């Protein structure tokens, strides 16, 4: 028998008899399960999810669901095929025992695996003051239960809603409030909405868009305190500029936290940044050595990307979750010579204030931006982002049909500024600073250290410095 046929037998028998466990039963988990069956995997498959709901579509939650058009429970994801899985919904994974290859569940059960997929995603950052966090009328938005509660509160027509944080989700929620004819204040601690994702130049356009739609946008402020009435319902917010606001609904849109706590002690390269993995979705252990049995997909995954100087990137977008899940599934049931890389060109969209914002690439990687088509004043344009003379991203406002043109240039690492398309030129087509925050600022969480002197005992160790509360401030 040749080596090749032995190896082929090994793969065939693995696909028939192995046990695969997927932790995280949302988009990435579901699509990975489907892809595994497509790959011919007929062994046992377990899907573990802490929510009681079957996998659902999250992007509509901050838009058509909040607006009251689509009920929150009517967001269930289409299934691409039968997966014949053992579903464990409503029970969280609480631990990972790598030595015995078992996932520990909140109900005390242990689920053995031969291959494990980590797809536990992120959750929304809660209000930073635990006492204030108990107030009625204070919401976050991540799950369909969150969306149902917030939609109900908006339907009751609060006299004013306050949205803390003007990222994509916060801005989309503000847009819905205005569509519903509600008074809404948005408090953002940076200079404008969407600055973190798209930079200050686009942020200024987003700010004008919000104000023109009647949003009371306050920038360069944080919300320092919330005050409730005797019934424990939020009634007032105190801002860092000394002003106070009377509000009945407050939505904390403070970004997300990765669900890595259940991996404590598992000695993986997991931290507030996510779970590091290679471009083939294989998890790294704490020392940066790749594992053979553990894979990562979805929002929690963080992998090196060839287009961005091989930096480790978390791509928290829908298509990255789907493609990553499919790549992870393929690599879980194939050997080295047959592995595939997961190298998505990041793509995202956001609908707000009647404008379709779409992007490709990693905008925040850029130092410069140039308007290439259309008119920023009319909220119909494309802008390209560049770094050190090459194009790294592009964003469009109501001009999405053009994005593929830019995506192709980004993939080819074409020069920046890109050649103008020849017509529909903006009045100002000069590159300018994109105005992102300096990412070299220390994060204040250096929680890994190297220990040991002998080459055999040398390794990394977590020395967690847990912050007092998860969100330091808005």
């Amino acid at each position: 028998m040749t080596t090749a046929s032995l190896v082929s037998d090994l793969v065939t028998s693995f696909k028939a008899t192995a046990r695969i466990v997927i932790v995280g039963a949302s988009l990435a988990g579901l699509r990975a399960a489907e892809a595994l069956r497509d790959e011919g995997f007929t062994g046992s498959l377990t899907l573990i999810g802490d929510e009681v709901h079957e996998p659902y579509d999250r992007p509509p939650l901050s838009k058509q669901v909040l607006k009251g058009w689509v009920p929150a429970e009517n967001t269930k994801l289409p299934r691409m095929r039968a997966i014949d899985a053992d579903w464990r919904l409503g029970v969280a994974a609480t631990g990972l025992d790598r030595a015995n290859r078992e996932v520990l569940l909140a109900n005390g059960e242990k689920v053995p695996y031969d291959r494990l997929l980590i797809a536990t995603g992120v959750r929304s950052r809660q209000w930073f003051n635990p006492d204030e966090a108990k107030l009625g009328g204070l919401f976050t938005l991540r799950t369909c239960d969150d969306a149902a509660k917030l939609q109900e509160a908006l339907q009751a027509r609060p006299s004013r809603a306050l949205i803390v944080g003007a990222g994509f989700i916060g801005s989309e929620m503000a847009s819905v409030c205005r569509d519903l004819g509600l008074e809404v204040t948005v408090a953002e601690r940076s200079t404008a909405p969407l600055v973190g994702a798209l930079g200050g130049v686009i942020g200024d356009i987003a700010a004008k868009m919000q104000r023109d739609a009647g949003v009371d946008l306050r920038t360069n402020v944080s919300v320092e305190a919330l005050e409730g009435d005797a019934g424990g319902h939020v009634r007032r917010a105190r801002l860092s500029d000394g002003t106070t606001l009377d509000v009945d609904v407050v939505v904390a849109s403070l970004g997300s936290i990765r669900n890595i706590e259940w991996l404590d002690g598992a000695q993986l390269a997991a931290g507030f940044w996510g779970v590091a993995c290679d471009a083939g979705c294989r998890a790294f252990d704490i020392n940066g050595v790749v594992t053979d049995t553990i894979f990562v997909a979805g929002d929690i995954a963080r992998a090196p990307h060839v287009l961005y100087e091989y930096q480790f990137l978390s791509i928290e977008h829908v298509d990255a979750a789907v493609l990553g899940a499919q790549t992870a599934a393929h690599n879980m049931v194939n050997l080295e010579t047959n592995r595939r890389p997961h190298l998505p060109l990041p793509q995202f969209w956001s609908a707000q204030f009647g404008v379709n914002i779409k992007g490709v690439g990693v905008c925040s990687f850029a130092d410069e931006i140039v308007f290439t088509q259309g008119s920023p004043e009319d909220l119909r344009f494309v802008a390209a982002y560049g770094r050190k003379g090459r194009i790294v991203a592009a964003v469009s406002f109501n001009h999405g049909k053009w994005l593929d043109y830019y995506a192709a240039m980004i993939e080819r690492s074409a020069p920046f500024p890109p050649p103008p398309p020849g017509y529909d030129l903006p009045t100002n087509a000069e590159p300018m600073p994109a105005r992102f925050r300096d990412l070299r600022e220390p994060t204040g969480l250096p929680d890994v250290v190297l220990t040991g002197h002998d080459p055999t005992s040398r390794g990394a160790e977590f020395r967690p410095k847990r912050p007092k509360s998860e969100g330091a401030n808005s």
Partner: protein
Amino acid sequence: MRIVVDLNRCVGYAQCVPLAPDVLRLQGEEALAYDPNPDDSERQRVVRAAASCPVQAIIVELDPPADRTTK
């Protein structure tokens, strides 16, 4: 029935909107919003809308797979 629209792919040609106006709507000039779990009575309209999409962005689950017990 269940659908999902790949809004990375969708660029707002809006061919689908008049074919299933209760399921697919345009918000502004280019942004598509959809009902992910439309009533089964929409089936014919949704299938036509999905077929009409120039970029094939509408993913339809025509029949639930055998192992799906929930509605």
